[in-house]
C-alpha cells in the first residue's frame, strides 16, 4: 500500500516569535526553521507502517519556498522514499494547500494520506479535513492509533472528553495527534542516504490549481501583556492575596 505524507516547514516551536515592527508579519530572517512537529509524527507513522510490512512506498509532499526541500530531506532521512515540492514564494492558505494536495493525490493514488493535525505556526487545523472533503474520502483527525484491516482502518482519536473509536473506509485521510508515536532521531548515514532519494519540484500552475489567497492579513500584533505579578513568601500570604486582593476565593 502506498502512503502519502505531508511536511510543512515552520519556525521552530521553541523559538520566541517576534512581530515585525511594521505589523505585516513575523520575523523569519535568520530564524531556526524545522519540520512541523505534527508532520514529523505523521512521517514517523508512515515509516513504522513500512517497517511493519503494511506500507510499500512513502511519498512526502511539502508546499512552499525552495527551502522546503530541507524539510522533505528530513522526512526522507526518517524513511520516506520519494519527495515532491510544490514550489511557491508566498505562503499558501489551507484551502489552496488542500487543492494542491488533491491534485497530487489524484495522480499518485495513495491508499492512505497521513498529515499532522495542525501546523504550529498559523494553528488553523484545516488541511487534512479539507483534503478529505475535496477527495470525497473519510477522515479521522487527531488520531492516537491506526490499524489497517483490509479495506478499512481502525482508528482511535483524541476528543475533548477522552477517546473515540472509528472505522474508516480506505482510501482515507488521517491526521496525527501527539500520542500517535514518538518520532525517531535522524542518523547521519540516513541523512546521507536521503540526499540520493528522488525529489521532484513542481509549480502550482502545473497542477492547475488557483492558489490566490482568500484571507487578507490586515495586521499582526503581539497580544496584550499581562500585568506583572508578585512572588509570595508562603501559603498564608498566597491565600490572603487570593481572598482580599484578587477576590477569587
Amino acid at each position: 500500500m502506498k502512503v502519502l505524507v505531508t511536511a510543512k516547514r515552520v519556525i521552530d516551536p521553541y523559538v520566541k516569535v517576534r512581530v515585525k515592527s511594521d505589523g505585516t508579519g513575523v520575523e523569519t530572517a535568520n530564524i531556526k526553521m524545522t519540520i512541523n512537529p505534527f508532520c514529523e509524527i505523521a512521517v514517523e507513522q508512515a515509516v513504522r507502517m513500512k517497517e511493519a510490512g503494511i506500507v510499500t512506498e512513502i511519498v512526502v509532499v511539502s508546499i512552499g519556498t525552495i527551502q522546503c526541500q530541507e524539510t522533505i530531506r528530513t522526512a526522507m532521512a526518517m524513511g520516506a522514499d520519494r519527495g515532491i515540492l510544490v514550489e511557491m514564494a508566498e505562503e499558501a492558505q489551507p484551502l489552496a494547500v488542500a487543492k494542491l494536495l488533491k491534485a497530487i493525490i489524484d495522480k499518485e493514488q495513495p491508499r492512505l494520506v497521513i498529515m499532522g493535525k495542525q501546523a504550529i505556526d498559523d494553528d488553523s487545523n484545516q488541511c487534512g479535513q479539507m483534503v478529505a472533503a475535496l477527495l470525497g474520502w473519510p477522515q479521522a483527525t487527531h488520531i492516537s492509533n491506526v490499524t489497517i484491516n483490509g479495506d478499512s482502518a481502525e482508528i482511535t482519536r483524541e476528543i475533548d472528553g477522552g477517546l473515540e473509536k472509528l472505522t474508516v473506509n480506505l482510501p482515507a485521510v488521517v491526521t496525527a495527534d501527539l500520542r500517535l508515536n514518538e518520532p525517531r532521531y535522524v542518523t547521519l548515514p540516513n541523512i546521507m542516504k536521503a540526499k540520493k532519494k528522488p525529489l521532484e519540484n513542481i509549480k502550482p500552475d502545473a497542477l492547475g490549481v488557483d492558489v490566490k489567497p482568500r484571507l487578507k492579513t490586515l495586521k499582526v500584533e503581539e497580544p496584550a501583556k499581562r500585568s506583572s505579578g508578585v512572588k509570595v513568601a508562603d501559603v498564608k500570604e498566597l491565600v490572603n492575596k487570593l481572598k482580599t486582593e484578587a477576590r477569587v476565593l
Partner: protein
Amino acid sequence: MAVLVIAEHDGKQLKPGTTNTITAASKLGGDVTVLVVGHQCAEAGAAAAKVAGVAKVLVTDAPQYEGALAENVTAQVLSIAKNYSHIVAPATGMGKNFMPRVAAMLDVQQISDISSVVSADTFVRPTYAGNVMATVQSSDAIKVITVRATAFDPAAETGSAAVEALAAVPAAGLSKFNGQELTKSARPELTAARIIVSGGRGMGSAENFKILEPLADKLGAAVGASRAAVDSGFVPNDYQVGQTGKIVAPELYVAVGISGAIQHLAGMKDSKVIVAINKDAEAPIFSIASYWIVDDLFKVVPELVTELG
C-alpha cells in the same frame, strides 16, 4: 445577513462553548439560527431555544448522527449552507473536525479560532500559540468561522426561539462510529470550570499527581495537566491544557510543577488570576503568573489544602 451556528451538545444539553459561540455570532449582525444535529437530541434543541439572541432552532434527529461523524454532519450543514452568510461553530474537538470539511465543499477559506469580531468580514485570531494576533479579512461569499469560546462571554438563557425539525440527509457511508471512552469525573469540565488546578512534569508520577485532588476538592476545581504530564502518562490526554489541547480561561488557574513551555502558556494565559508553584526560581511560568511561590510543591500543596480549611 443570516448566521448559522452549529451547536455542540450531548443530546440533552449544549456543551460549554456553544453559548459563547452564539455571543460571537450575535456580533456579526443578522438573525442567528442554531442547528442541532444528533441522535435523540430534542432536549438539546429545546436548550438552544432558550439562549438569548437565537431567532430559530433547527433540529435534525437521526441515528446516523450518533458520534457526530464529520462526513455526516458536513452533509447536513451543506443541505442548508447556501441560506446563510456566516456559518459558525465552537473551535472544540467537534467544530475543528467537521467545519473545514464544510468550508472546502463551499470553496471557502475557513477562519479558525477567532477571538474577536471586528466586522462582518474581519476577525482577529491567535496564531503562533497565541503569541501573535492576526487581523484577517475574508473575501469569500460565505464566511466559515470557528470561535475560541474563552474569548466571548456565554449568552444568557433568556431566549424563547421557535424550534423546527429539519429533515436528515442520507448518511455518507464512509466511516463508522464505534463508541467513546470518556473520562468519568465528578469535577467540572475543564473548559467550563471557574477554577482549574493543573499539574506538570514536576508532579513526578501518576501516584504523586493525586495530591492535587484534595486541593481541587477544596476549591471545587477542575483538574488539568501540561503536555509533559500527559506524555509521561500521569493523566489521560483529555486533561491537556495547551496550544493543541484545551484552551481555558478560568477565574483562577493554579499551575503546580509546570515550568511553562510556550505551548502550555498558549492554553491558559488568558486566565484571570494565575498562581504558580514551582521550586525552580527561573521557571518561565512565573513571567505570566499573578502570584507565585518558589518552593517544593509536595510541601506547598498539602499546606494550601490545610490553609483553605
